[in-house]
């Protein structure tokens, strides 16, 4: 018994002595964020830096599950060393993330990324909490064949134009025998996606971004009410009644089965739409989202970044690896092989990238004009803010309340959550 205990002790001491020679780092990646690329990158990095051992853990595919895990880490001050962060998280997690500017190379790197994304990941005090890794922005998908068939030369530039074109095409296709056909699909379910869609509608109609970057509740305004009234009128006219229960995937399934003329979605639907068994392969294109009659097109900003939590035992080494993962070379590779949209404007002119993903050519201007959700200014309450937003907008879409009244309630909610003053524009 004693001898056995001793043996265990010796082997334990030995293994921990061995472990001390290398610096252990870990990172968790959702299976859909290109985990294989990260594994390859980690192996390459370990070859270049033999003193570092990196463990790549597979995290849950669902974003909410990943968030719950991170919160457990923060709570117990123990966990992986490099966090992959949704674009809306850095604000709320501010207390637990290190300022990346304290590490070597980040100031230079930050200048090369899209400004809007860096701004989104920066706190009011000027701390950079996440280095951009890949980006996402809302797009208008449209059916080139149907636009041609009904005599339209260009995709719509205003929401009103979209409505009338969608109506014409829908009526035509219904007469032609496709009873399942709808004009426009978007994301109308009560979830984060609706906050993004609503941001795009309202901001593109000069109705602001719910809460201004100065910290004022601006959402209750006539422009916002006007565009939400318009969208609510689409439900069960040019959009299916079920659109109020659509997330990205439900929209894509209607669109990809050839039953919609227009769709609002993220870039991921592009390559899936051109897959072999897609009914619309080669029959569609993307454009910037329409705008209100006075406003300009707005794309909601999405995407992911990399950050270092405050409990990491090796923050410097972790930061160096994060910098490597987010580097231009890495992003180029991920863009070519996995169509992850780069966060460097420069890569959108890269010939190899464009050859692999042609629509990136137009994507650069879209990302440049992308608008982030008010996650930085409302931290650490963004989750509650967003929930108030999508619930209020949903009550308008299902016509439980008219837009003006719904926004009135929302403004009061936002005041209560954030403590910001309300501003009449």
């Amino acid at each position, binding site marked *: 018994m004693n001898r056995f205990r001793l043996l265990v002790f010796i082997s334990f001491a030995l293994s921990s002595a061995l472990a001390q020679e290398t610096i252990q780092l870990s990172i968790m990646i959702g299976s*859909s964020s290109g985990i294989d690329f990260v594994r390859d990158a980690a192996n390459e990095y370990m070859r270049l830096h033999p003193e570092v051992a990196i463990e790549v*853990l597979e*995290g*849950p595919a669902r974003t909410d599950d990943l968030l719950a895990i991170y919160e457990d880490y923060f709570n*117990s001050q123990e966990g992986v060393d490099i966090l992959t962060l949704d674009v809306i998280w850095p604000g709320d997690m501010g207390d637990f993330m290190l300022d990346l500017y304290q590490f070597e190379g980040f100031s230079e790197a930050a200048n090369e990324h899209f400004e809007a994304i860096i701004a989104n990941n920066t706190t009011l005090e000027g701390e950079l909490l996440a280095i951009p890794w890949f980006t996402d922005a809302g797009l208008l998908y449209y059916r080139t064949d149907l636009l041609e068939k009904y005599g339209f030369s260009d995709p719509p530039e205003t929401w009103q134009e979209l409505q009338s074109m969608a109506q014409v095409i829908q009526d035509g296709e219904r007469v032609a025998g496709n009873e399942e056909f709808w004009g426009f699909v978007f994301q109308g379910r009560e979830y984060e996606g609706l906050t993004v869609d609503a941001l795009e509608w309202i901001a593109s109609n000069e109705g602001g971004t719910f809460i201004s970057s100065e910290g004022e509740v601006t959402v209750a305004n006539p422009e916002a009410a006007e565009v939400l009234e318009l969208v609510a009128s689409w439900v069960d006219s040019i959009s299916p009644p079920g659109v109020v229960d659509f997330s990205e995937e439900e929209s894509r399934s209607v669109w*990809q089965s050839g039953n919609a003329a227009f769709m609002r979605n993220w870039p*991921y639907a592009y390559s*899936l739409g051109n897959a072999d068994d897609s*009914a619309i392969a080669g029959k569609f294109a993307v454009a910037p989202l329409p705008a209100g009659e006075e406003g300009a097109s707005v794309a909601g900003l999405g995407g992911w970044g990399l950050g270092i939590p405050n409990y990491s035992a090796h923050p410097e080494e972790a930061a160096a690896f994060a910098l490597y993962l987010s580097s231009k070379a890495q992003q180029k590779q991920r863009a070519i092989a996995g169509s992850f949209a780069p966060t460097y404007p420069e890569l959108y002119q890269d010939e190899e990238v464009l050859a692999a993903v042609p629509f990136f050519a137009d994507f650069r201007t879209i990302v440049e004009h992308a608008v982030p959700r008010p996650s930085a200014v409302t931290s650490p309450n963004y989750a509650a803010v967003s929930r108030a937003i999508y619930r209020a907008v949903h009550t308008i879409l299902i016509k439980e309340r008219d837009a003006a009244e719904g926004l009135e309630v929302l403004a009061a909610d936002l005041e209560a959550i954030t403590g910001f003053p309300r501003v009449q524009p």
Partner: protein
Amino acid sequence: MNKQTRKIIGEIFFYILIAIIAIYLIFPFYWALISALKTEGELIAAPATFFPKEITFRNFQAVFTNTAFLRGILNSFIVAGSTTLFSLMVGAFAGYALGKLRFRGRTPTLYTILAMTMFPAVAILSGLFQVIKAIQDIAWLNVPTLVLLILIYMVFTLPFTIWVLTSFFRGLPDSLLQAAQVDGATFLQTFWYILLPLTAPALVTTGLLAFIGAWNEYLFALTFTLQEPGSRTVPVAISQLGGRFAMQEPTGELMAAALIITVPLITLVLIFQNRIVDGLTAGAVKG
């Protein structure tokens, strides 16, 4: 209407009722099956087809080549199997004590055990996280994660097991006990040789229920196996079946995975049930 025709009509209604219930129970499984066999194009097409036009095994292939998923099946069998076995062992003792023995504090004990199940799992998650951390920090013990999962699941299956077994033990006639005592058998002997065989049907049933409970559990499994991919159970492995893109939901693969893990489970339960339940229900209850 004579008695014969009434009986026939009764039989017909009986079979119709059975058929409706059988369809209700099986249909979603059938729907998952055809959804897994459809191509993505057909899966999202409207109106839905009730039989796939073109059968593809791509979803099944994807799941079967996923080693994390296969590992998950093995882990789930280990965890759920051990949880069941230990819950039954420990729970049968407790059920016997609570159902047949007289002692002070019996009712409060029953209620306390029941009260353990009255919190939503999410509420005790973070507290449990700390307890588990504390156990893991005892380095020389080196408790494997799967064992920790078994311990946690037992906390959730035990109250139920104890309650069901208590009610079954109580239902057994006292005359048996008295006869055994007259013969000079100890409490344990009475328990082991007389009562336990009689409660076999209840043991099988509660065992099955405990097994499925542990097999289905997601929240704790997710939380406690994060740092150890090798210990993940099936529900966690399924939640990690992601699409190629963050927003893509691989519906077909999810359905295929659901079928793949359900079929062996049902087979297992069937073998188990036919062998044991049938054998026992015939002879066990003599009263």
